[in-house]
């Protein structure tokens, strides 16, 4: 296990590379869902307001 985390001496490069990549993946999932939730809320507000002003 120790050997695995050591990555043959490349740990300081391999793990940050994986961390950045999967942080971007997770943030993308979060951002996309938030964008949809916000757009739905805005559309509901417009509908509730009689569908008037944009």
């Amino acid at each position: 296990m120790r050997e695995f985390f050591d990555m043959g001496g490349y740990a300081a490069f391999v793990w940050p590379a994986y961390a950045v990549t999967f942080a971007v993946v997770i943030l993308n999932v979060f951002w996309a869902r938030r964008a949809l939730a916000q757009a739905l809320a805005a559309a509901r507000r417009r509908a509730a307001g009689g569908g008037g002003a944009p």
Partner: protein
Amino acid sequence: MTWTWFHRLGSPPHVYRLARRLTPWFSWSAAVLILAALYGGLVLAPPDYQQGEGFRMIYVHAPTAWMSLMVYTTMACAAAVGLVWRMKVAHAAAAACAPIGASFTFAALVTGSLYGEPMWGTWWEWDPRLTSELILFFLYLGYMGLRGAIEDTQRADRTSAVLAVVGVVNVPIIHYSVTWWNSLHQAPSVMRLGKPTLAGAMLWPLLTMLLGFTLLFVALLLVRLRAEILARERNASWLQEELAA
């Protein structure tokens, strides 16, 4: 040949519902493939004879770099369709691509830098491949900045689409930069004519990761596309129905 499918892709309610139905399929298959590729790449693949365990960075660097180019190409195609056929849904798709592409280009640059330091002895070099990839990042930022600066959605769609289409010349420049100029960066080992130069046990996790990231992109695009369609549809009767449901 009938063109009904193409016309239906121009219909916001049709695309909105189709996107909602397809999202879970793409999301879950992407998750399964990415997890399998992680296990294959970090555990099953043998160390490289030159780069040792450090080569495992390829399993995050190549997929993020692939995303940066594939997402831009998709964005430019959608923008072109939007310009030519004045298709609102196509413009919505182009707008949905940009933040996804920008973030993965950022990841490609950072993982590349982390890969470069132990292998080439430098974090950054003004090398053709690295410089053109950095320009791609700025193209995404410019596209989003331009959209943000124009309040009218229709005008923002058309103006930013021109930038997206013009910027696509950078995509082949990035891809061929390592062949056209002397570059620190290695030549393609998978995206090349002829057989890949990677051994099977190293290759399958990479191909699986590339496919997983591509499916993830489709899932993200479908969710963002729905948000973009909602922002463009005002007072449409289908929307009222949709919101009431």
